[in-house]
């Protein structure tokens, strides 16, 4: 035969007890949450010290670099000044042809029986042209000279302007020689920067 449990406590008392219990549970839960939040905050603060320390090291490193860079700045300024002067010189006279190589090439290719009487240079923006006048024993000599000149690296083109036989039985001629654009005189040896 089973027992029947009947509480003799008043209803209000039971309700109050339940409510206190709930309150206690809630308080404990809130404390746990607050505790967890405080713990998380402490962890975050600890973690933030690592990048802070790294940043401090990097800042110190940068300061060291800055000091050294500042101490060497005068060399940079000097290098810039020299560079500017080189540019000025090159802009002024950097486009002149290597006259010496061109005149040597002219003399090297001149065949026997041909005499140059006049060499004039004409400059244009595109190229440098030589007008060469002279006398030759015959037309073949002039043709031979032009054939010698054309394959030379120093010249881009060689053309006969005129030729005629004089009463003294010599062939007068004029040829135009166009200097190659790459035959530029190097002004200054490059400075390793």
């Amino acid at each position, binding site marked *: 035969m089973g027992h029947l449990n009947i509480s003799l406590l008043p209803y209000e008392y039971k309700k109050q007890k339940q409510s206190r219990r709930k309150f206690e549970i809630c308080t404990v839960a809130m404390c746990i949450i607050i505790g967890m939040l405080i713990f998380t905050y402490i962890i975050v603060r600890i973690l933030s010290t690592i990048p802070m320390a*790294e940043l401090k090291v990097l800042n110190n490193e940068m300061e060291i670099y800055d000091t050294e860079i500042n101490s060497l700045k005068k*060399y940079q300024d000097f290098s810039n000044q020299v560079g500017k002067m*080189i540019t000025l010189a090159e802009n002024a006279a950097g486009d002149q042809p290597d006259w010496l190589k061109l005149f040597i090439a002219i003399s090297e290719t001149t065949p026997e029986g041909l005499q140059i009487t006049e060499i004039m240079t004409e400059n244009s923006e595109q190229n440098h042209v030589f007008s060469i006048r002279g006398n030759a024993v015959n037309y073949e000599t002039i043709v031979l000279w032009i054939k010698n000149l054309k394959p030379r690296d120093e010249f881009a083109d060689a053309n006969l302007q005129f030729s005629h036989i004089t009463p003294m039985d010599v062939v007068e001629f004029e040829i135009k020689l166009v200097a190659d654009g790459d035959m530029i005189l190097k002004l200054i040896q490059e400075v390793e920067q």
Partner: protein
Amino acid sequence: MNINKSTGAVILVIFLLCTAFLGYLILSGITEIQALNKQIEERKQAILIKQRTLEQLRKIKENAGILEDTYNTINVMIPAVISTENIVAEMQNYANKASVTMLSVNFGQITQSTDLLEMTLNMSFSGSYNSFLNLLYYILHGERLVKVNGIQIENGSDGLTINITAMVYFQAN
């Protein structure tokens, strides 16, 4: 019962305030870490650039002697002082070394072009073709910057007559 209710309400409010405050602190802490990490990346990039700059500067310092020589060379090539007598003396010296006779030297007007002063020079010489080549070598590879604009060579009874039109430069102060 009434006391419990009000106490509960106070505790709840305190809890909410604490939660909000701690949440704010945690979030700001995380944001701070992120900002620090970003700064670290930026510093690392800046350090890399500074390292490269420093490397270049060290190289320039190593080549300071060459730079000094180049500076002196350019100062001789393009002098600051306009001195026509020096030009005549130099040309005469080149003519002597090349075994040609200097017939005349004429100076043109000085004009300013960018940061330099330019002066036209008309010179006449007489001599052989090989002597002329030597003269040309001395002029083009001499200490002074000379831009040869034109050359005229005529074969006369007394050898070659060589006319050279050139340009010399001075530093504009």
